[in-house]
């Protein structure tokens, strides 16, 4: 078996991974850093982020305001020390990206322009028109190419972490082009593989967002934190799930029910004004807007289409000039994928799965509970997002914590011992599992695609916007049944050359792990907070649940859940107030 050795191994080539790679290269140019990504880095899902990245830049804005918006937006489940570190470093990271060439939109005098986003008291969203994630990712990738250091494992898929003597010492990966299995040893490993939206059927997420890093850590004994908090974005296109950015509402768009009525006024989100009002109506937080949609649907006031119920996003009053200048991608997407022009027509939208607030439990440096293993970006849960992420915090998060994890991993790599021989034997076992256990296996009655569709259906039915114990229990049973059936899965494709079915099979295995963690965390949290709404426990319960859920993998059917108290520094839990 081929083996390669590096100081720092980064798994995932999106925004967080690239920022981490640059941080390692800058911390110590002598360090050998490698980036493994299952797609070419510029294909990573960071590319799809539209609206922007938050950081305090206006003199009217402040550190306290960004902290408060984030913490109240997160329904007080954020760790406030993490939020303070995040808000403090956010402007520096966005300026760093400006120095690297990111084409941020500008004011007439050449300074950075900002715009309002949902749940924000003061506008602080930096943007590059409405392709912010695209420009950030390409800027990071092109900047990373400048450094000699990184070894790029493009289109390699990591299948397991190598752990021995209580520390992470590398990973096993498949080169997709050839099917070669290789042990990649390292003194420190950083997971930056993004979220897991594909556990659900309707999502803004790319096909590649299968929670691989979360599952890798979970199997290695690392707890997953707050997995019950899955964000629905209120404005996705109905058939494709394509995101229509919150910036459309930040610029002044309205949400209308079937009667053309701005229905959010009925859900304690303020009173309608012609111009956008921050923290009010359409600029309320995503969880509240998605929940209002379901209420409105139950009242029969949504519009029925062949793809289910929708409401309308109306941006016609903004005019072609503003739309083309500020949100041109919205127009491009509507023309292409809905065959309608939002300058003249209403955009049909519905809530779709968008973001995993939970993830691999880390400290403020991105370190997990397993020495040598770090995580940053959506794969991680450093707890700045709490129970509901504020729009435009995630792009900034991947910079701030990608850089922190990179620096921490570089520091460890300078002193940690080399990987031992025992992990190479583990890698050989993994190679056998992949080849004789899966690739060469014949017979077997189950198909990857069918199991995936059933899993997604079970999650939407039992763990959607509103949940209760009976529905979650039923989903847990369904997922357990699917996991048993997965043991009987067989591939159509037995080829070593770019076997995308093998990759999809391993991704499904990962998602089934995460589905269990999402459901069990949701069952144990017997309260309603942010994106986790229990109809059988409709109130927030700070007495019992001002705590994170930590899901541990067990030998049995279901994960074990432990609670970890939230860190409160300066903002005691209070009521979330929007529009008043």
């Amino acid at each position, binding site marked *: 078996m081929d083996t390669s050795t590096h100081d720092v191994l980064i798994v995932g080539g999106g925004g967080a991974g690239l920022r981490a790679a640059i941080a390692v290269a800058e911390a110590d140019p002598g360090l050998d850093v490698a980036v493994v990504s299952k797609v070419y880095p510029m294909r990573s899902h960071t590319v799809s982020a539209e609206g922007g990245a938050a950081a305090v830049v206006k003199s009217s804005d402040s550190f306290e305001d960004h902290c408060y918006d984030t913490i109240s937006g997160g329904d007080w489940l954020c760790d406030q020390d993490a939020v303070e570190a995040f808000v403090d470093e956010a402007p520096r990271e966005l300026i760093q990206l400006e120095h690297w*060439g990111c084409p941020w939109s500008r004011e007439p005098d050449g300074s950075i322009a900002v715009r309002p986003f949902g749940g924000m008291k003061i506008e602080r969203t930096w943007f590059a028109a409405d392709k912010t994630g695209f420009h950030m990712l390409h800027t990071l990738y092109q900047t990373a190419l400048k450094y000699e250091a990184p070894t790029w494992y493009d289109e390699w898929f990591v299948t397991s972490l190598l752990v021995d003597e209580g520390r992470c010492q590398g990973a096993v990966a498949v080169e997709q082009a050839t099917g070669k299995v290789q042990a990649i040893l390292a003194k420190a490993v950083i997971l930056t593989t993004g979220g897991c939206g594909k556990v659900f059927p309707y999502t803004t997420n790319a096909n590649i967002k299968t929670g691989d890093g979360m599952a890798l850590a979970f199997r290695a004994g690392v707890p997953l934190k707050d997995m019950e908090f899955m964000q629905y974005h209120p404005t996705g296109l109905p058939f494709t799930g394509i995101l229509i950015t919150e910036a459309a509402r930040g610029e002044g768009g309205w949400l209308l029910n079937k009667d053309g009525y701005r229905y959010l006024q009925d859900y304690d989100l303020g009173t309608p004004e012609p111009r956008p009002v921050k923290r009010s109506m359409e600029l309320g937080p995503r969880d509240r807007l998605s929940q209002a949609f379901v209420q409105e649907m139950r009242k029969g006031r949504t519009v029925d289409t062949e793809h289910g119920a929708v409401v309308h996003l109306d941006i016609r009053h903004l005019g072609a000039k503003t739309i083309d200048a500020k949100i041109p991608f919205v127009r491009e997407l509507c023309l292409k994928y809905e065959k309608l022009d939002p300058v003249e027509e209403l955009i049909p939208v519905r809530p779709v799965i968008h973001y995993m607030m939970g993830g691999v439990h880390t400290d403020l440096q991105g370190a997990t509970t397993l020495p040598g293993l770090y995580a940053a970006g959506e794969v991680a849960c450093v707890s700045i997002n709490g129970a509901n992420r504020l729009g435009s915090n995630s792009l900034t998060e991947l910079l701030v914590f990608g850089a922190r994890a990179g620096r921490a991993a570089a520091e460890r790599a300078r002193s940690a011992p080399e990987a031992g021989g025992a992990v190479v034997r583990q890698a050989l076992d993994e190679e056998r599992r992949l080849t004789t256990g899966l690739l060469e296996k014949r017979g077997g009655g189950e198909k990857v695609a069918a199991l995936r569709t059933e899993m997604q259906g079970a999650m939407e039915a039992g763990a959607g916007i509103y949940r209760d114990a009976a529905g979650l229990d039923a989903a847990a049973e369904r997922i357990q049944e699917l996991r048993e059936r997965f043991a009987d899965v067989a591939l159509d494709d037995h080829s070593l050359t770019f076997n995308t079915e093998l990759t999809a099979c391993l991704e499904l295995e990962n998602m089934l792990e995460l589905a269990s963690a999402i459901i069990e965390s949701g069952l144990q949290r017997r309260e309603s907070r942010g994106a986790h709404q229990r109809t059988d426990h409709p109130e927030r319960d700070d007495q019992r649940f001002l705590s994170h859920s930590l899901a541990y993998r067990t030998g049995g059917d279901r994960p074990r859940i432990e609670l970890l108290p939230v860190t409160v520094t300066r903002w005691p839990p209070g009521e979330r107030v929007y529009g008043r």
Partner: protein
Amino acid sequence: MSDQVTLEVFRYRPEEAAEPCFERFTVPARRNWMILDALNHVKEELDGSLSYRWACRMGVCGSCGMTVNGEPVLTCATYLTDAAASRDPVRIEPLHGFPVVRDLIGDIRDFIAKLKRVKAWIVRDDEKPLSEGEYLQTPAQLARYKQYSMCINCMLCYAACPIYPLEPEFIGPAAIALAQRYNLDSRDAGAAERMDVLSQEDGIWSCTFVGECSTVCPKNVDPAGAIQRYKLQATTAWFKSLLMPWRDR
């Protein structure tokens, strides 16, 4: 139109057969399906071994470029029924100009190497500290290079380029457009270094200005325009160096 569409899909499985072939699949003619949806239907329902790349399915990740009815397109942004209206069966091949790895997957490592060669990043001698804030850039300065920054690296322009298959060393449309993107950025000082690369034989001069690259670009980047602009700059620089050899470029 009938309620079904026949696809004629390029298959290449090097472990099974030395030569590629075409395989036919019948899929429903759904009005709102893109070519990519049809391929996903094939993979999920008919043949799990069909191999192709895709990720965002919203036209921004650049993964799913293929040749459909002879034209390089993003398959996530090309309607199945539109393709069927122009040719039946709909023929789907990998992007031309790249070595085929398997089925619809081409090898694009050459492009990554070229991106590195043209130094597609900000080059600057003096770096001001982050504490001094951003470099000012007016909307007009931003507009000078913005178009070239929209490249999603989807490789359609290379597939359309008549020169690239004949002269694989040619740096090619997207990489030249991205070099130009940085040259025109008011924050950059690397134009001379990039000129050293691009004015070589395999740089801009291979281009015979057919313009196909700009025609197929799904993001209106206009790489052909970038190349023409570059030729003009290079020629001007060459004349200056003849007339004023004492002067730095």
